């Protein structure tokens, strides 16, 4: 078991057991009735509840430690990057009850369970106290607080209507309450009459009355350690995912009163390797008997196993055979960690998509769970098509979402790396028709991608810092897919290691030789923190100055926009855009900073480059400039 709950819960409770402030007007306040939320409880909880806002939406959260850790819902902080489902919202602001505002960082989040951990910098914040959400009763009085529909500090009260809700397709049981929970309440606490937090308010049914749902706080506490240290919740891979509770009829037909029925053992799984079989009845784990007569029992059992650490030893005891002939078998194994989750159910997924927007094609690494979710043959390998844009090159080739591409140019594909190697080599060679073989459910289909190669013959050098560069991969994919004659140049390092490009990398480009850029149509400088190191590189500065003075196409992304400003010695007369964090530096050096996502002024093109979509628009804009 992870020790977090056991060790930190009392500690956190002790930390937060501070003297409570009494409301100044209490003496003159009306007398409380039994149905009121006790005033001291409000003053106890209220300072810990925060409003969360970002560029897309917002919600509520609550402080859990004096040094600024905050719990909320995953869906409150979820970002909008279609290719990276793990990316949270960009600029998150936390507003305390005293109106102080803090920029916040998302340390980790999950959509199921719907939990996020954020951090604000500072000390002396007032944390909540935690209740025991494993021991709650239906009918127990509870209160919710949050910022519904943007309304500040809203308290609502009710009871726990159900404490074992399992029919919302969630990974854990959730609480149901009739305390009003509306949009904006998400992420706020549900607390008891002692002011102890029982859960994180999360879902509500729109248009229904008094149907709100809450993640039990113990579930969130089980996850905190992983979210804090690993940025994601890492489940242990216990071979118990295809199981059933033994409900009345099953108990009758199987002739057993307790245990858990193993309904399926996935071929190739740990469970199969262990020797478990479909129809086995699990009766004990580590010598402790297990029993699930209801779905809630089963979810609780599975959750307790999921939160175990990888590497732990475990013993499973099962009954096997027909009624009256059953034998008891014991299996010993070491728990492994579950890999990255694909998108399914409420899970947002943790696997990145690699998109070639110029081809209208996005693919993902194929994992075992994809075969189950999308019902593809378990023995099929390749990459999973995740995105096909209408009327694109991929669409014209007849490629469909959820196809598995298993061969490119006749070469078998077993991984994303191999796919990229083959496809990008073909793009680099400007293949007119790139043969693609597809597994579509049970059928094999052969087709070809015929890219437009709008930038064919255009020579582009992509200059990137050796470390801490951003979106180099995206720019490289898009430029290759457009057929550009691309070289990647990394001053101080021989090459960026990118599949498919080894032969093309500028290992032999002498960065001190400005003439190497004479026939280059575009010099594109990648952004990221690392780009600041290029500010000290005299060769790079001289290239950039030369291109500006001779009106040759130059493009900068993100902080790389500082390079032309420095190269021109503070006399850059062209408009430029940069990330807002660099704006004051640009302005101090006399640059005309605009702050637009994309800026074009003569031969100088620049982009803030903080989002994948902006990068893609920038590449398209550059393409137009190159073609014109």
């Amino acid at each position: 078991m992870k020790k977090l709950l056991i060790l930190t819960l009392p500690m956190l409770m002790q930390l937060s057991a501070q003297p409570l402030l009494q409301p100044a007007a209490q003496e003159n306040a009306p007398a409380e009735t039994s149905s009121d939320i006790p005033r001291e409880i409000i003053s106890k909880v209220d300072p810990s509840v925060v409003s969360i806002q970002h560029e897309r939406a917002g919600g509520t959260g609550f402080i859990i430690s004096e040094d600024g850790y905050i719990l909320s819902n995953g869906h409150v902080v979820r970002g909008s990057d279609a290719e990276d489902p793990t990316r949270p919202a960009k600029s998150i602001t936390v507003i305390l009850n005293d109106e102080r505002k803090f920029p916040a960082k998302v340390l980790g989040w999950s959509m199921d369970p719907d939990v996020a951990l954020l951090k604000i910098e500072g000390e002396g914040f007032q944390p909540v106290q935690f209740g025991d959400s494993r021991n709650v009763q239906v009918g127990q009085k509870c209160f919710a607080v949050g910022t519904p529909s943007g309304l500040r500090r809203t308290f609502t009260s009710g009871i726990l209507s159900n404490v074992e809700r399992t029919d919302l397709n969630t990974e854990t049981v959730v609480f149901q309450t009739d305390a009003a929970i509306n949009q904006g309440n998400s992420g706020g606490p549900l607390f008891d009459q002692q002011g102890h937090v029982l859960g994180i308010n999360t879902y509500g049914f729109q248009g229904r009355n008094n149907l709100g749902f809450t993640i039990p706080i113990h579930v969130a506490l089980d996850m905190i350690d992983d979210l804090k240290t690993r940025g994601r919740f890492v489940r242990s891979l216990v071979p118990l995912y295809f199981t059933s509770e033994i409900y009345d009829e099953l108990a009758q037909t199987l002739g057993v009163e307790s245990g858990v029925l193993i309904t399926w053992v996935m071929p190739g799984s740990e469970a199969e390797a262990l020797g478990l079989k479909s129809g086995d009845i699990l009766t004990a784990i580590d010598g402790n008997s297990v029993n699930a007569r209801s779905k809630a029992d089963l979810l609780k059992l599975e959750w307790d196993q999921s939160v175990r650490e990888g590497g732990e030893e475990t013993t499973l005891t099962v009954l096997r055979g027909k009624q009256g002939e059953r034998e008891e078998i014991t299996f010993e194994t070491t728990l492994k960690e579950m890999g990255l989750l694909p998108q399914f159910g409420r899970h947002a997924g943790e696997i990145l998509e690699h998109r070639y927007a110029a081809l209208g094609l996005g693919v993902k690494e194929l994992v075992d769970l994809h075969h189950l979710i999308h019902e593809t043959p378990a023995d099929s390998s390749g990459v999973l098509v995740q995105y096909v844009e209408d009327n694109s090159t991929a669409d014209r080739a007849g490629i469909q979402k959820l196809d598995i591409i298993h061969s490119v140019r006749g070469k078998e594909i077993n991984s994303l790396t191999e796919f990229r190697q083959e496809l990008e080599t073909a793009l680099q060679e400007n293949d007119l028709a790139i043969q693609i073989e597809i597994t579509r459910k049970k059928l094999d289909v052969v087709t070809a991608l015929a890219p437009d190669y709008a930038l064919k013959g255009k020579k582009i050098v992509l200059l990137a810092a050796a470390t801490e560069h951003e979106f180099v991969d995206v720019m490289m994919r898009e430029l290759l897919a457009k057929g550009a004659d691309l070289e990647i140049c990394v001053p101080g390092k021989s090459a960026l290691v990118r599949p498919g490009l080894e032969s093309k990398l500028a290992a032999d480009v002498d960065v001190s030789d400005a003439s190497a850029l004479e026939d280059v149509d575009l010099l594109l400088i990648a952004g990221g923190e690392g780009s600041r190191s290029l500010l000290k590189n005299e060769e790079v500065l001289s290239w950039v100055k030369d291109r500006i003075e001779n009106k040759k196409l130059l493009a900068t992304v993100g902080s790389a926009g500082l390079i032309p400003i420095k190269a021109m010695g503070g006399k850059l007369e062209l408009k430029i855009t940069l990330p807002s964090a660099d704006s004051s530096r640009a302005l101090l050096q006399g640059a005309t900073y605009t702050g637009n996502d994309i800026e074009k002024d003569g031969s100088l093109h620049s982009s803030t480059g903080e989002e994948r979509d902006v990068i893609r628009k920038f590449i398209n804009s550059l393409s137009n400039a190159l073609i014109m």
Partner: protein
Amino acid sequence: MSQSIVRLLTCSLLLFSFTACVSPPGSPASEYQGTQRALSASDGVLVHFKVEQAASSARGNREPRTVTFSGIVLSEEGHLLAPFNIKPDTADRIEAWVGEDRYIARSIKAEPSLGMSLLKIQPKAPLTPVDLSSTGELGIGDSAYTVVGSDDSNEFTRFAFRAFCQGIIEGFYRQFSLSPLPNATRGAPLFNSTGEWVGIVTQNNAWVLDDLRPDIQQMLDEALGESEGPAASNSVWFGAILSPINTDYARAQNLPRSALWLVHVYDDTGAHEAGFQNGDLLVSLNGNPLRMSGNRTQQYFNQALRPKEGQSFEAEVLRDGKRISGTGTLTKRPEPDTLQAEDIGITVSNINEAMETRLNLFETEGVIVTELKPGSPAATGRQFGQPLLRRRDVITELGGMPTPDVEAFGKALDSIRQERPDSVLVEFMRGPINSIEALNMRIGNSTSSPDSL
């Protein structure tokens, strides 16, 4: 009429052509006349369809929605031609307006290659069918007119539209390429300036009536019992899953662009008899090279085959760069044995090769659930709306007995009926995952109609 025109203009529903036809004096008289002739010719033959599509259909998890389109009266008895592939087993509710009368229509035949269906209503009085023998012509640059009916959501009975014929698109069925028309005209008759019926409006263009006539007549004859009967050709097949070759791939590999991949050849079919294999590239049929490219090649093939049981064909494929010719005989699609297990609340059938591929089944040693009776033991799960068994589940064991086919399933069922247990264990595959459930045999006496696959 004038009131209608004013309303139409107010609603901005009409293209300029219609206003030009009937409003201000000074418009070309011929266009006005053309519209009037079209209105006259369409009198009584127009159908306005409104289809409420079910939320979940066999075609996928579709949201419920309502679509409207046009159609044509084909017979006095109430046979209607609709411009979509509406299968006879559809759960969609289809309303048909003929004039001011509203009917509920049912599909009696879908013709996928035509993209049309034959529907039937029970008219209150004999209808006025369209004249299928019309031999009107429409040349490039000519004006064409179409008229659509209306439902009871407004007070207009008909709308008229004009388009230009921009050209003729070649194909097995030729199409008039028309200037844009509203979506609601899809399925409506197209008239020339003299009021002769020349085509049927499609999504973007119009089929040429001359090319469609034999097939529409055959479809109608079959429905009226004057031919071999309905579905005579529907169940006859070539015996392979076909997919058109990608033209870019064809160009790169120097292969014919009018060709079809044999993605999957089924056993005991004409394609199998001809010696064809998965991965062959079909390039000709009965001595004629395939024509067109992309999906139109497939459409061409379907039409050129004209499937009829017992009819032989000769086809040619490319395999490893060599041309291979083969002959085969068209056969009927095999119909799997089925069994209705009323006490459990399901209908099951054997699994054939075509079902395995079409339904993407992961287990063939079992029987597939094709119908589920609401309220039955199989349909009553532990949670509302989540039945224990579902259509497409493949049952591999019932009451502890293997059920590789319907016969074995029947024996297992007989055994259960004799023993009359309170609960029955059922093991099945749902997609790639094995499941085990226990059915409570004491529940369920619903008389509701089954939910068809």
